């Protein structure tokens, strides 16, 4: 069902866990739907994402997209990170089965919620 790339990312997910002293956190999804993703970030004064880590409850596609999306935003500015779409994440993974595309939206949403959180903290 999954391609080699997705299987490899699921087998060895990167950026897994929680960033120490994070200043942005976003959690989306719910247990009833079977998908939850949490992303934590440390964003510096120039609005650059220095580090990001994820935790995910979900299927292999949810784990693979979480890992890949998290990797794609590290080193980027928050404005750039907000432009990341689930389509780009799916492309990076060289495709997902059609019924799993909805899982990739989770990461896009979690990043948006985390950056909202960061901006709220910053602007008090």
């Amino acid at each position, binding site marked *: 069902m999954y391609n080699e790339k997705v299987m490899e990312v699921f087998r060895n997910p990167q950026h897994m866990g929680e960033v120490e002293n994070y200043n942005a956190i976003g959690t989306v999804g719910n247990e009833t739907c*079977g998908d939850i993703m949490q992303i934590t970030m440390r964003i510096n004064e120039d609005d650059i994402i220095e580090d990001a880590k994820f935790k995910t*409850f979900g299927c292999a596609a949810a784990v693979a997209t979480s890992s890949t999306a998290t990797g794609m935003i590290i080193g980027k500015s928050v404005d750039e990170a907000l432009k990341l779409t689930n389509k780009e994440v799916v492309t990076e993974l060289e495709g997902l089965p059609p019924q799993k595309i909805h899982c990739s939206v989770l990461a896009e949403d979690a990043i948006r919620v985390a950056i909202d959180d960061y901006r709220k903290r910053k602007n008090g």
Partner: protein
Amino acid sequence: MKSIYLDHAATTPLSEKAFEAMKPYFSDIFGNANSQHVYGRDAAKAVSDARQTIAECIGAKPSEIYFTSCGTEADNWAVKGIAAQLKDKGRHIITSVIEHPAIYTTCKQLEKYGYEVTYLPVDGEGFVSVESLEDAIRPDTILVSIMFANNEIGTIQPIKELCEVAHKHGVLFHTDAVQATGAIRYDVKDLGVDMLSMSAHKFYGPKGMGALYVRNGMRIEKLLTGGEQERAHRGGTTNVSGAVGMAVALKDAVDNIEKDAAYVGGLRDDFVNKVLARIDEIYYNGAKDTSRRLYNNANFSFRYIEGESILFSLDLAGISASSGSACSSGSLEPSRTLLSIGVPVGTAHGSIRFTFGKRNTSEDVDYTVDELVRTVEKLRAMSPLYKKQA
């Protein structure tokens, strides 16, 4: 890489004995069992012998066994056949909430055509109560269909008692014995059921072969209209090799039922004990009393993690099991059976069924337990829901 098959409730490998017995019927003895010439007669003889064997295995008469293309067809025939046959008597059917889709969706379909269906609840271990059945029977009830043993959690229903209640009220009783046949020794006359479905590939027979037992003296409308096959009850060219393979496999299963139950049940018990000892925060779903549970079945819900990722991690380690979880089926609904026994929705997502078979070994058990422990630890470390106990 290791390859351990723990999904015997999904299907079993064809036994060597059945395979050998079937071979001539693909080539030399290829006739249509309904033809009048020698080719037909040879095929008809094989079908008749197979019917005799299957009947003996379950305490029926050969004239009470009808071959079908699968267990699902047998289930559809029993429910729709009685619905059509008795439509002027009543339009109420009783079944349970944990039936296989072959019964459940068939009942749902009948609801669209004006039938009323009562879905009996089950208790925390998956048992239907005799009292709830008695309460549900109405003057217009025409059929009760309750599965013999559940495919997901292995719970074995008190079929004889349930059947007695139905008969006390003059209602016909069907049981889906797809998981039970070959695993539980039964006699249809002792059970008292009017109809019973079975499927060959669940007991090391071929896929694409099922049967419906219909008690002599009963009338049932056809599902497949066509030629005069199966004594004009089921149209369609008889699957001769399938019938032969089914009979050989069932006889073998029934002859060795106690031996297989002891061996496979021993593996299952060992597995369950080891898993419960090494992994915390899990539920063992289904009947705790092993005498009321299929000997091959183990079903766990692992809290804080999701079934498909567990299944997939095991698959990468060479272990083939099955998930009752939503993601694997493409829907967001977790298993109806698990929800019915009270497993919370979130936890139901993290459920895995392991079903053991004759070819499994104690090494398979130990390897699977080790991999499962590793997988659960890894996925919990990744889960935003899991807070490690200090």
